[in-house]
Structures are given as C-alpha cells and as structure tokens.
C-alpha cells in the first residue's frame, strides 16, 4: 500500500519551527498554520489560542483538496495559491511540496503582496526539510522491518496482514484511554 505518512524527528521539528517563526515575522501575519493535505496540523506559529486549530486544519485540508479536484476538472494541474478576504481577517493558502498547506491568517497590518513574497521564501526554506518527513510506501518499510526482526516472509497478496491479530496489546491501552476521556 502506498500511503504517505509523516514522521517528524527532532531536527525536522526544530527547522520547521524556526522557518515558521521567521515567516510569521517577515509576513507580519497574525498566525500561520502548516498542515498536511489530509488535514493534520504539523506546526503553528502566532496567535492561535482562540481558535480550535485541529478543526481549522481539518477544514482547510478539505477546502484545499476540493480546490485541487476543481483544478483537475478545468484542466489545471493544480491551484497553488488561494486567498480568502474578509472584513477584518484574510486567509492566504499556499501549497508546499505538493503535500503540505501553509495557511496564513492576517489583518490590515500587512498586505497580500508581502505575504506572498514571504511565503515564497518560507517555501524555499521548508520544502527540503519537509521532504524528509514524508515516508511513503510504508508497507514496504514494514516488510523490511519484519524481515529484519524475525525473517518472516512477506504476506501473500489477499491474505490479511498478520499484525491484525498478532499484537493485541493496544486493546487495553485504548480501552483505558477511552474510559478516561469519557468520564
């Protein structure tokens, strides 16, 4: 299964946070969110405490991916940038490395040209760093890992992967976590 996953190590995290901080300052935006196209929040900078950032990230992921579907229909490869203008607040979105979305919330204290310029810089900085966070074809990685560990043969196509029954240890942990959350 080729399903992209993101793994953030210490150094990737530090580099992304540094770039986000610089971008926030250079653009003079109020807050900046970096997320994956599937709606996972990766990093945030600036004034975000009043917002429910997880939900914002999920919605932005939805907006952006539907915009890309629209691009395909009108025969554009992709829309790289999107801009939403409100009375007090504006949001500027741009795609980074095809997998990430940089969403910038700003008010009258800056202008979209400045955001656009600073976002270009931020993209140049972050693209190579973020590329290292992408782990594609995880099944291959998992097979390599299991072969290293116990020389187990790779499961034949169509046969359920052994992990589904083999490791029951998370059941109790999830059970405990859920009963804690819901009490």
């Amino acid at each position, binding site marked *: *299964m*080729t*399903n*992209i*996953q*993101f*793994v*953030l*190590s*210490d150094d*990737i*995290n*530090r580099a992304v946070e540094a770039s986000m901080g610089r971008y926030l300052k250079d653009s003079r935006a109020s807050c900046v969110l970096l997320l*994956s*196209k*599937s*709606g*996972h*929040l*990766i990093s945030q900078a600036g004034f975000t405490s009043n917002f*429910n950032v*997880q*939900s914002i990230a*999920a*919605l932005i992921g*939805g907006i952006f*991916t*539907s915009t890309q*579907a629209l691009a395909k229909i009108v025969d554009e490869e992709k829309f790289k940038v999107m801009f939403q203008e409100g009375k007090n607040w504006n949001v500027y979105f741009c795609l980074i490395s095809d997998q990430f979305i940089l969403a910038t919330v700003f008010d009258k204290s800056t202008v979209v040209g400045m955001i656009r310029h600073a976002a270009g810089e931020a993209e140049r900085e972050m693209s190579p760093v973020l590329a290292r966070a992408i782990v594609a074809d*995880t*099944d291959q*990685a*998992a097979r390599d*890992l*299991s072969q290293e560990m116990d020389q187990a043969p790779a499961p034949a*196509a*169509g*046969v*359920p*992967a052994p*992990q*589904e029954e083999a*490791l*029951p*240890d*998370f*059941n109790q*942990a*999830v*059970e405990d*976590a*859920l009963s*804690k*959350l*819901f*009490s």
Partner: protein
Amino acid sequence: MSLINYSSKEITCKIVYYGPGRCGKTTNLQYIYGKIPDAKRSSMVSLATEKDRTLFFDFLPLELGDIAGYKTRVQLYTVPGQVFYNSTRKLVLQGADGIVFVADSQVDLWQENTESLANLRDNLGILGMDISKVPLVMQYNKRDMPNIVSVAELDHALNFRKVPHYEAVATTGAGVFDTLKAISALVLQSLSAKYRR
C-alpha cells in the same frame, strides 16, 4: 495518513466511517460527541445540507491522552454516502489510517451496502491503498429495525476479510464504543508495527 512527531511525542491518526447514505455514520460520531464530558469537549464539525445530510464530512477530534508514551489523537471523519458525492468521498478517504464500514442492516438496503463496499475498494485503489490491508472493522447498524438481515448473512456478504464486526444501534449508542475501540486499537497496532522505535 498518520502524523508521528517523535520530538513532541505525539501521534495523530485518521479514522474514516464509510458506508451507504443514511446508514448511521453521522449518528455514530454524534453519539460519541455527546458522551464527552463538557470540560473535555472541543467541537464537532459537520458540513451538512439543510436536510441534515452530510455534504462534505463530519469531523470529531478525540484526545486519547498518553498511550505507550505518546500523546495520542484520533480524528474521526465520516463521508457523505450518497452516490453522487463520490469525489468528496475520495477526498475524505485520502490519508485514512483505518476504516469503519457501517452497513445498514435493513433488508431493503442490501444492495446499497454491497455497492458502497465496492465503491470503497475502488476509491482506495485510486488512492493507492489496498482494501485487503488497511485496518478495518465492520459495523452492522440499525439492529433495532423490524426488517433486518441476519448478522451471519451480512458477515458472509460484506466481511470478506473476516475482520472484527459489531452489531450496533447508533441512535442509542449500542455497539458504538466497541466499534471505536476496535478500530483505534487496530490503527495504533499497525502504526506501532510500522514504526517501532
């Protein structure tokens, strides 16, 4: 598509409730949302039409807290079930770490269930994912309705992988948490198998 942050010790994973229109996917999330104590409640996002039908998706983030040393966050999504929303379904399905297939147990909905499962297989294929490998559980919902198919028959027709299945009445919450627990555990297990550290 999970997000694993080794430095802040956080894991975020995405679980998608899939199934035909009106089978009870949104009701599952609403029931779960309703059971979160006020103090811990954030928000559930529902993009619906005026007729209460899911237009784009429902979204419910759950903070499970510490599991195996990681701050674990599970994000629940539902897809719109109606046939004509297929492009939206693909968007929501993108990056799913686990899937709950919700079937409507009513006799009249037999065909909708099998079509939706075939559609899931197709959409996963387009996204480069394999329905025979993705963490999956089945939920046979609306067990309270009068004219329903037996669990054995549903299982025979839909559960080709013999994954865990649960009977449910989403409106009263029966089976809802068992389903959630099972898929969460499967997803975390498969992630840990992939990223042992």
